[in-house]
């Protein structure tokens, strides 16, 4: 049985004009990669910053290893903010050494540098790093204290697809070590690929929580068939649940055979037919009525 590493009980953050976090409860076990998803303004950044100890809570409890968060948590947590400035005129090596000196326990720097693929840039000024190199340095800083719990706040935002895939490989490596990860992201495929558990937030509350697969199964028992709109011009689509988007018609159904049979009967070409399962994107829109980037 896994141990609850982080327990969040009835967490509330009230700002003068808005309740950013409204009574959240989460139990996070060791070794889990937990994804916190939500549209902008949902309260996920506030929640994560409260967990990181950056923002004070209005009420509620956060227990780390059974005790209120404090010095031990700060020593054992690794944090990668979405946008962190690094000191100018300081090299990658010096930055890592400075952060390593802040902690009583730290990772082997040579191994960390190799793992985050920073060897070539060690003597480079922080200002001269590319987006991908910078994100890898920020991840290395987050790992410098060999953390038991790692917070990654939109770690791949702004990276090109290749850099993003490389970053996912790094996170997979970290997961393999049994570290607990809390990840916030706007990319659903990222959450699906990396997270063991996800929670979707909206208006300061968690509106869905579970494994990605379980959430999809609980909310959807259908698939989507997609065809170009002009292929279906002469067909009566009224028996189906359809959605038109950018010249494509999406037919949502739990009976694929029935739809395909109907299409064939109507002499519709299936050459351009696409069938896809429901995704986290669909789940999010279903639950919140918003696009993740809105």
């Amino acid at each position, binding site marked *: 049985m896994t141990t609850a590493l982080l327990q969040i009980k009835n967490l509330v953050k009230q700002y003068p004009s808005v309740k950013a976090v409204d009574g959240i409860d989460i139990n996070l076990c060791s070794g889990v990669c937990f994804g916190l998803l939500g549209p902008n303004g949902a309260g996920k950044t506030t929640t994560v910053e409260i967990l990181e100890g*950056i923002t004070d809570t209005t009420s509620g409890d956060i227990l780390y290893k059974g005790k209120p968060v404090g*010095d031990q948590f700060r020593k054992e*947590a690794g944090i990668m903010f979405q946008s*962190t*400035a690094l000191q*100018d005129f*300081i090299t990658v090596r010096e930055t890592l050494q*400075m952060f390593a000196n802040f902690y009583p326990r730290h990772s082997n720097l040579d191994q960390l540098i190799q793992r985050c693929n920073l060897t070539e840039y060690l003597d480079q000024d922080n200002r001269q790093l590319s987006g991908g190199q910078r994100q890898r340095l920020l991840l290395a800083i987050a790992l410098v204290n060999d953390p038991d719990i790692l917070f990654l706040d939109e770690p791949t935002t702004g990276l090109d697809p290749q850099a993003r895939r490389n970053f996912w490989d790094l996170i997979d490596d970290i997961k393999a070590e049994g570290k607990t990860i809390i990840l916030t992201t706007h990319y659903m495929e990222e959450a699906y690929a990396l997270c063991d558990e996800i929670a979707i937030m909206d208006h300061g509350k968690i509106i869905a929580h579970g494994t990605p697969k379980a959430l999809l199964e609980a909310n959807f028992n259908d698939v989507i068939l997609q065809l170009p709109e002009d292929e279906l011009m002469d067909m009566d689509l009224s028996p189906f649940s359809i959605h038109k988007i950018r010249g494509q018609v999406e037919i949502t159904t739990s009976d694929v055979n029935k739809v395909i049979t109907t299409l064939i009967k109507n002499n519709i070409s299936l050459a351009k037919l696409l069938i896809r399962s429901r995704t986290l994107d669909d789940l999010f829109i279903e639950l919140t009525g918003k696009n993740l980037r809105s």
Partner: protein
Amino acid sequence: MLFNRFLALLSTRNKEFLRDHSSLSWNILMPVLIIAGLAFAFSGDIGEKFKVAIINQDTATIQTKSFLTLKYIDFYQIDHDEKIIQHAIQKIQRHQIDLLLDAEKQQYWVNPESPGGYLVEKILLGSESTHSQQQNFKKQTVEGKQIRYLDWVIPGILSMNMMFSALFGVGFVIVRYRKNGMLKRLKATPITAFEYLSAQVVSRMILIMIVTAFVFYAANFFLDFVMNGSHLNLFLVFALGAFSMISLGLVVAARITSEETAGGLLNLISWPMMFFSGVWFSLEGTVPMMQTISEIFPLTHVTAAARAIMIDGAGLLDIAYHLLVLSLQSIAFLLFGSWYFKWE
């Protein structure tokens, strides 16, 4: 406070400053350029009027009255107070006044090494000879090397440079780091606010002292300005002054999140200090209220203490008042700045 955390912050901040060549150059070049400019401006004969201080002008004798009517001599009356008279005599020693005359007692003080004093004395005695029935003036000689304006202004310029470096080098940098999220990142580590601020203070103090020492010795090599006191005492005054003004910078930077606001506030503090702390001109002749207000500026006390050491050869006891005020201000600024400080 954990020493290795403090040292890590200190070392990184020092490297950052030393590698920022434009900032470093400006810190060194600004005082050098001001001093060089002043040395050039005051290198020639500027044709000033003769200056004569008068005691007991109201009860002046006839021949003295005749002397007091002469043109192109700047006469100004001082009170018949022992302290004031001693201060005027000190100015004669430094060639800042050409002659001091007691109009009632027919007594004058002059520095025989001062060309201005020599000429004014001749004029005074010439006016006396036209009233031969009167008794002679009694002459008191005072000795002392000339204090140029350059000698007088250098302690202030060194202090002023220190002030700009302290206020902008700490205050502005902290606000910049708060704005770009660096402080937020540090907050997420075991670093305490006290460790962070201490590292900033010590780093800036080390750099200010090195830069000030460099400027001091370089300027002295070229300009040979007066240094009558102890170098160690001067070092202590500058160190305490730097500490006080860095602490003031911490107060400014405690919560501000905008560089524009910080810049405006720092200018609001530094410019009045620069003009009303006795850096460029003596506050003696100014209205009493200005003299009182100037007492609240750390720069006033650093400049006065440094000037007393460099020109008068004052010891620590002589400048105890300034040291006490600077110490109290440092403690007050530091405590308030640390208490008021927010990472974000």
